[in-house]
């Protein structure tokens, strides 16, 4: 099971109500995955600014770790905003250096600290529980931007906690995020390969490898679309996934069409979801819906 949904505004408006739309779609898909919910939203940011959403650590250490993280961040760039909500510290800082270095420095501040997302436009919020709870805690319905993706999880093989929830940010690659419905059967093989190259995995969730795969393909010179197309051959198993970065929004469906995914495109927007109930919940007006075909990849660029 699991439910995925995404919305992409085509009008060039960078303050579309993407938080509210993705939230409504996720609420409609809630029955497909009650374990956790999350969104990755892409909004406009100040130039040169990097926004980080950081899982601060276990209960009790939150305030202390947050203070240490802000202190560490100040050594690396000018911190313009910092705020803690529930398990997260949100940081905005001027930073032009190597994103991997920023990640390494901040995560070494204390055990249990994890960069959930980093990007010039991306922000990920996810937690255990329903989409409604996610909104109650973080107020995602108020967030605006150009595009967003979301996920409700029915856990099958790895544990239920914040880190194992989706979307997954592709660590080391700012702005790239993925939501996945299905099962990547060559996960362990790919994971071993990436671990040998020095990549760190944060979870036992097979979906985590998709973002890493796409980041790796793009580092080798493929563009966003080509990376998604290549994944049809290199990823085994069942998958319908949505991927996005600051400029792109796209989906890929495995060559056997094991998992549902349908989409609609009008002059104003593109919306993609596991079930049409989500589109009815999130959209208004007339639109024509089509199930994605086996092995279909589609990408939209901002």
């Amino acid at each position, binding site marked *: 099971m699991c439910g995925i949904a995404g919305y992409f505004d085509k009008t060039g408006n960078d303050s579309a109500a993407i938080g509210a739309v993705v939230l409504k779609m996720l609420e409609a898909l809630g029955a497909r995955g009650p374990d956790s919910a999350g969104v990755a939203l892409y909004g406009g940011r100040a130039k040169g600014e990097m926004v980080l959403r950081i899982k601060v650590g276990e209960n009790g250490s939150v305030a202390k770790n947050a203070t240490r993280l802000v202190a560490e961040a100040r050594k690396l760039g000018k911190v313009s905003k910092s705020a803690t909500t529930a398990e997260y510290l949100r940081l905005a800082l001027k930073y032009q250096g190597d994103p991997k270095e920023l990640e390494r420095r901040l995560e070494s501040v204390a055990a249990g600290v994890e960069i959930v997302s980093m990007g010039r436009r991306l922000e990920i919020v996810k937690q255990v529980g329903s989409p409604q709870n996610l909104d109650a805690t973080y107020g995602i319905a108020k967030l605006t931007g150009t595009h967003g993706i979301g996920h409700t999880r029915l856990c099958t093989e790895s544990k239920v906690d914040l880190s194992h929830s989706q979307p997954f940010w592709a660590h080391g690659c700012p702005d790239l995020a993925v939501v996945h419905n299905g099962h990547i059967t060559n996960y362990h093989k790919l994971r071993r390969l990436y671990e040998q190259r020095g990549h760190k995995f944060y979870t036992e969730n097979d979906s985590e490898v998709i973002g890493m795969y796409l980041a790796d393909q793009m580092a080798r010179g493929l563009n966003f679309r080509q990376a998604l197309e290549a994944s049809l051959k290199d990823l085994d198993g069942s998958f319908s996934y949505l991927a996005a970065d600051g400029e792109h929004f796209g989906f890929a469906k495995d060559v*056997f*069409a094991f998992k*549902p995914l*349908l989409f609609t495109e009008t002059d104003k927007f593109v919306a993609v979801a596991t*079930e*049409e*109930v989500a*589109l*009815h*919940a999130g959209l208004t007006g007339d639109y*024509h*819906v*089509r*199930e*994605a*075909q*086996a*092995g279909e990849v589609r990408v939209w660029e901002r």
Partner: protein
Amino acid sequence: MGAINCDGRTIREINSEIKRLVADGEKNIVVKNTAARHNLGVAIVKPVKLRFEGSVGYYCAGMIDGPTVEVTGSAGWGLAESMLNGTVIVRGSAGNAAAATIRGGTVVIHGDAAARLAVALKGGLVLVGGNCGYMAGFMAQKGTLIVCGDVGAAFGDSMYEAVCFVGGKIGELGNDAVIEKPTEQEEAFLRDTLKSHMPKKTVLKFKKVVAGRKLWNFSKQERAVWKEAL
């Protein structure tokens, strides 16, 4: 005419209400605000008219025998699955495994169909106005599948006595599927079928696809054929 509003009702309540109206002798039932919800209008076994205004989710009109079901929007996975008789018309597109294992009746999809259309077809007629995905007609035993547009890969794989007609391009034929020239009678049947279900649609020429019967009986001499198919 009986009307049902789906808002605020569970699927069980909606389907019970449909069945109650059918039992009361209602011949015309309209269901509103369907919002793509699943399992609507299953197991209706009387020749009533049932109209869903909007889109429906998974398994709409499954296991029916006799009714005429119309969906004004699109349909999710497993449309009309295992129907015995009746007519199902979808104005939009349909998800995977539409008209799978039907034994009789007619399924008309005006838009596109996705993967595994009419798999294990055991009778009846399936007509698609647009394109369809891969693996359509897999192991179809009897009945007729007509696709006006293009079809995906593995088309008509491992079929028995079903007959398929394709108006557009064939992505790739499945194992043992072969192309034949339609007979004059078949061409007349295709014209009549289109005229009655999709009067605005014109398809100049259909390709006919049937089983080459190479997989019907096992022969040691044909090991290569089996190796390919399995």
